[in-house]
């Protein structure tokens, strides 16, 4: 049934969760929400008859619980699709795809190429957003819990690498590049992509039970992908439209 969509239409806006991690999501100095994921969502909701989106910034870890608690109608934050997440929420078709990267000190003193390298060096610590993909990748690669430092936001991660509190900070490639651009710090270096880490794609994440809304979203998304408007929105941010078109939700959710 379309009751959720009707409800959004009548209230005139959809509540989205974002992370304030450019270029995926960003808040401008005037407080306006931008970034690739919200821009796509805004356009699609407009086509669905929902005038605008209202964003709240959230930690990655809080997004899915917040969705379940009804705090947001949809998460548009670069929350990559993974089988466990597919089980917890209803994803749209892929929107933004990116590989993983690491931020390290200039010259990569510890010689990291993959998460496994971090695991092997028993003195190495790696920072990642709490509840984000990178945290799980590191843990799965065998880095023990106490060496995976949960960092609240990108700026803090950058600062902690600069201060030598952590040896590497991991985020998707484009996010790291954006951080580097702002910091403009020659003492840092980006390793991208991280070896052995798959390319991930995110989708708009809906609450389980809102599949009807998700399906309507998918229809508009497909239309935009076909017409090229999709590429027009995301490519200025550095994302590849082709990558998103070349894969599907079913593939990503099944991947092991």
């Amino acid at each position, binding site marked *: 049934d379309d009751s959720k969509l009707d409800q959004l239409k009548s209230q005139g806006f959809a509540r989205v969760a974002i992370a*304030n991690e450019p270029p995926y999501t960003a*808040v401008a*100095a*005037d407080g306006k929400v931008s970034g690739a994921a919200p821009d796509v969502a805004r356009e699609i909701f407009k086509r669905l008859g929902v005038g605008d989106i209202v964003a709240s910034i959230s930690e990655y870890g*809080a997004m899915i619980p*917040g969705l379940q*608690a009804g705090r947001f109608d949809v998460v548009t934050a670069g929350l990559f699709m993974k089988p466990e997440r597919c089980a917890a929420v209803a994803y749209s078709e892929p929107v933004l795809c990116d590989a993983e990267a690491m931020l390290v000190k200039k010259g990569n003193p510890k010689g990291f190429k993959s998460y496994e390298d971090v695991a092997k060096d028993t003195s190495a610590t790696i920072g990642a957003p709490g509840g984000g993909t990178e945290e799980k990748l590191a843990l799965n690669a065998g880095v023990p819990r106490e060496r995976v430092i949960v960092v609240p936001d*990108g700026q803090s991660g950058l600062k902690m690498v600069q201060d030598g509190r952590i040896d590497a900070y991991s985020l998707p490639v484009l996010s790291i590049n954006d951080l580097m651009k*702002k910091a403009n710090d020659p003492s840092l270096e980006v390793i991208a992509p991280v070896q052995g880490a798959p390319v991930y794609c995110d989708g708009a994440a809906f609450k389980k039970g809102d599949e009807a809304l998700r399906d309507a979203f998918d229809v508009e998304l497909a239309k935009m992908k076909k017409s090229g408007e999709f590429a027009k929105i995301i490519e200025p941010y550095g994302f590849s439209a082709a990558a998103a078109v070349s894969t599907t939700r079913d593939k990503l959710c099944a991947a092991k």
Partner: protein
Amino acid sequence: MTQWSGYLGLILQGALVTIELTLMGSVLALVMAFLAGLGRLSRFFALRALATAYIEFFRGTSIFVQLFFAYFVLPLVGFELTPLQAGVLALGLNVGAYAAEVVRGAVQSIGREQHEACIALNLGRWQGLRHVILPQAFLVMLPTFGNNAIELLKATSVVSLISLADLTFQAQVVRAQTGNTMVPFTTILIIYFILALLISWGVRSLERRMARGLDGVRV
């Protein structure tokens, strides 16, 4: 070049949210303080027990936990709250529990002889409380209420963790946008301090006004 003026605007927006939270939280806290504080002094066991349970629960669990509970868990059991409502609710109930003890202590600090004078003048329980005990007790409560309000102001910073765009939250946003940590944090520390000074100044002048004519009696 960084657009500081734009970011200052963000921070001031955050200050507004902080002030709003502090005011609404204080009102809720004040109401709860009198309800629970007087409830604890009630003759009726059920009221006393209820008030005690409220006070011990909210003083016992961390404001932090209460906030997360209100924000993430209450909706799961069917209580929908906006972040602002969740923030005001958690802050007001938490600080209200502390302030309730202030109310109780202040009422009890009014000597037994005042209660006895009320009985000797045949005032009813409520009349005595309303006209004799509370006006005196309120003066005793005021300074501590001021401290409670400052505690509440400080606790508002925690709501940034449930994505309410208060001062601390906006400082984080500015930090993410500009890559500068020192400036936004120093700015908000100063704003918080000014707000705290305003509160204590306000409470002190209220106290002075109310204490007029009472010199040397109490406090």
